[in-house]
């Protein structure tokens, strides 16, 4: 049954996407590590980390597509799950610094020494253990999504209201993480990382592995998401998106369906955040900013919601554009981004992938109709010929 679940996921497009992702995941680190620095094929480490960052964003956009594209929940707070996953990873990395910090305290991170904390707060315990930290990357966003969704979906908060309270959620977390008393480094967040699993986070080899892991996790999550939406459950999911009440009247527990999808999506976002932090080298409360979460929605919309592959393309394109514009014409970037929002909603409501798919389908339909026409024409000719005989 499980194999059926997975095989059903491996539809042609998804296989192709996973193949490309894995190829990039192997090729880019290989070009970075194996070619000499002056070779034309060499990919510098900073470029690799930049693309690694895009892959994390792509995973975040994929997570959002699962809830927005297939379940109709427009979450304006997905950045919060991303940031929480990032903080969990950041806490692990902080603990790995050990006594190499500026103050040389073997247990307390620098900022705690600076703020005169005497001992590690209870929620920092266990984060020196990688497995526990990785568990938390899934559990913390998942738990928040569960509690939040539990209340919200049961009381049937939906549509615009849900969007706005998810925004309120990430805004409240933003304010909370800015506070020094919270024990997450306040304004400055967590940074100055040294090691991950004993390897230096600055080393090319580590960066290469992180890049590969980003591509791998993105592929795995893509397969999982595809499996979910192509299962029977996925059909109900689309039903919830399109006619929630009708699905409820048919006897489905809509709130449980939504809750499950929301939690899975939040965990994916958490994974994205956890991969993001070691590649970028910092996590600070700015990641909770509501504007960030809205940007994720734009990546998804640009690529095409409800297509799974679209958000990945959208995230990479928009962020690539952002890197280019903010470097080349910093003045224009916000105009370009704003214009993109408007253009996509007005002219490409299905996004890039959605429009292409739609075009292909239309062409196929046209072709099929033409074939049928031709076939009927042939048939008519045959009948005529028969009649003539």
């Amino acid at each position, binding site marked *: 049954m499980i194999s059926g679940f997975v095989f059903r996921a491996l539809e042609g497009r998804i296989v192709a996407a996973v193949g490309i992702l894995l190829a990039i995941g192997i090729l880019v680190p290989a070009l970075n590590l194996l070619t000499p620095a002056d070779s034309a094929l060499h990919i510098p480490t900073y470029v690799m980390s930049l693309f690694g960052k895009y892959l994390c964003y792509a995973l975040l956009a994929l997570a959002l597509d699962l809830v927005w594209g297939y379940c109709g929940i427009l979450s304006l707070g997905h950045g919060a799950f991303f940031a929480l996953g990032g903080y969990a990873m950041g806490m692990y990395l902080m603990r790995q610094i050990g006594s190499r910090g500026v103050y040389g305290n073997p247990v307390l991170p620098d900022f705690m020494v600076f703020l005169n904390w005497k001992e590690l707060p209870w929620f920092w315990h266990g984060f020196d253990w990688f497995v526990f930290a990785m568990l938390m990357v899934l559990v913390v966003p998942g738990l928040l999504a569960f509690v939040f969704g539990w209340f919200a979906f049961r009381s049937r908060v939906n549509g*615009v209201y849900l969007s*706005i309270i998810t925004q309120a959620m990430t805004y409240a977390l933003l*304010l909370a993480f800015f506070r020094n008393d919270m024990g997450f480094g306040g304004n400055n967040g967590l940074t100055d990382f040294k090691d991950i699993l004993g390897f230096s986070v600055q080393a090319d080899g580590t960066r290469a592995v992180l890049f590969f892991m980003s591509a791998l996790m993105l592929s795995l999550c893509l397969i999982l998401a595809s499996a979910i939406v192509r299962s029977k459950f996925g059909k109900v999911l689309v039903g919830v998106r399109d006619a929630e009440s009708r699905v409820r009247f048919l006897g489905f527990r809509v709130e449980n369906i939504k809750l499950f999808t929301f939690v899975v999506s939040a965990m994916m976002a958490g994974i994205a955040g956890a991969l993001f932090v070691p590649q970028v080298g910092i996590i600070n409360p700015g990641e909770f900013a509501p504007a960030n979460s809205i940007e994720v929605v734009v990546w998804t919309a640009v690529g095409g919601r409800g297509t799974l592959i679209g958000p990945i393309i959208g995230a990479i394109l928009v962020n690539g554009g952002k890197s280019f514009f903010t470097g080349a014409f910093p003045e224009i970037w916000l105009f370009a981004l704003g214009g993109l929002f408007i253009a996509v909603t007005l002219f490409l409501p299905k996004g890039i992938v959605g429009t292409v798919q739609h075009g292909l389908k239309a062409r196929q339909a046209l072709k099929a109709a033409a074939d049928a026409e031709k076939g009927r024409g042939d048939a008519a000719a045959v009948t005529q010929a028969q009649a003539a005989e």
Partner: protein
Amino acid sequence: MLIRLFSLIFLVLSFAAPSFAQNDPKPLIDALAKADFGEAEKLIGQLAATGDARVVPALNAFSEGDLYFRKSDNLVFIGKAAGSGYELIDPVTGVSVGQAAKNAVTKIKINNSLRRVIRSAMGGLTLMSPDRGVRLQAADAVLRSPSAENLELLETAIAKETDREVKARMEEARAVSLLSSDRSIDEKRAAIQTIKNYGGRNAIGILMGASAALDPSLKGDVDAAIASIESGQRLWDMAQNVWYGLSLGSVLLLAAIGLAITFGVMGIINMAHGEMVMLGAYSTFVVQQVIRENAPGLFDWSLAIALPVAFLVTGAVGLVIERGVIRFLYGRPLETLLATWGVSLILQQTIRSIFGPTNQEVGNPSWMSGSFPVGGMTITWNRLWIIAFSLSIFVALLVVMKKSSFGLNMRAVTQNRRMASSMGIRTPWVDAFTFALGSGIAGIAGVALSQIDNVSPNLGQSYIIDSFMVVVFGGVGNLWGTLVGALSLGVLNKFLEPSVGAVLGKILVLVLIILFIQKRPRGLFALKGRAVDA
């Protein structure tokens, strides 16, 4: 230097009371030159009796030992060491009359008993000055540093006083001075009552300071008075909190009321709403710049001029946005969110490109600065104006919605678009002007918010989430909900602040709203309807 300043101040004061210039105190002062201590005391009494503030510098100089008479003509001057000799200053007019050698003048002698006489005479002069402001200041001075010596003076002054406020202040000063005197216990008890009625934080300090020296039998009275003042103070603190809360609430109301139309009535998630507020604030800035350069005299009117300008500018921008973007997106609320977010980015960047990313300075007209006390709390004029302003906008909007034909069309279209259309209402134009109205009101809010917030391209961003919270909390499609939502969130915020701090207070409010939405998904005042998929 100090004396010159002092004399200058009193010079100005004496000009304020020109009617008392007839009795020239100069001969009395000149008489001091040859007077012995006993005669000097009488002369001081006579000087005080003139009630003329102009004698104060001379008396002051006398007690400081700076009063000299010129040997040649026995005229009295205030002397100031200058070079090898003295600079002589006329004691009444304060005008310098030139230098004198050291041996040309003689210092008028002074002793401590004379100084005491002078001090009480000075107190009397100011406490009985014809100028109401001077009397008030003198009473305040005694209040701040009470001493039993002033008691009789105060009592005379109180007997003569006619102004109610000054008299009350003097009574308080007397009561405070009385506590440290050797009057009877009953009188002191009455004084404690007076101080208690006076109230305020200072009164607690005065009573606590005095209680150590007081007769033990009065201790109960003092404690009771302090307790009573403290409970009064708590009430005032509460009132102050409510006031701050209402003031914050009115700011929220201002920020949210435009959104109550675009989001609440039309159902457009207008993420560019904050930028409309920002445009309004920048309109104020531009209007003020123009006024500063062309007609500085009109500065106090700048806000009144900025109001229609801001309304028209933001209304026009709103109209363009609706016609250009939003009208294609009706029925797809989540996508309007994206498009208007894009609009907001463009507007922000436009303003940043034109005016730069830094804060612009928007001035407060004179009638908006300053404050006045009400009982135990202080009320600043700008907050008061903003509360009044936001409430009047609210009322005006309510009238437009309920009484005008445009409002009627607007409500018809929002309730049943197709029906309204078939009744002959041009729904696209109603949509466009409703959106323009909401945007224009956001612009007006920007004029008011420019007075209390930094005018920068990011101004709108800081209000957008709060505005949505207010509208959602109050109930979409209901202006009254927005009013109640804004004010109650404001007051709640300010009541949480003292105990948990500003940031945590805000977080708690957000969490409470999130929980509240679970309980009432349609807000405080929900529109009733039967639709399943509303």
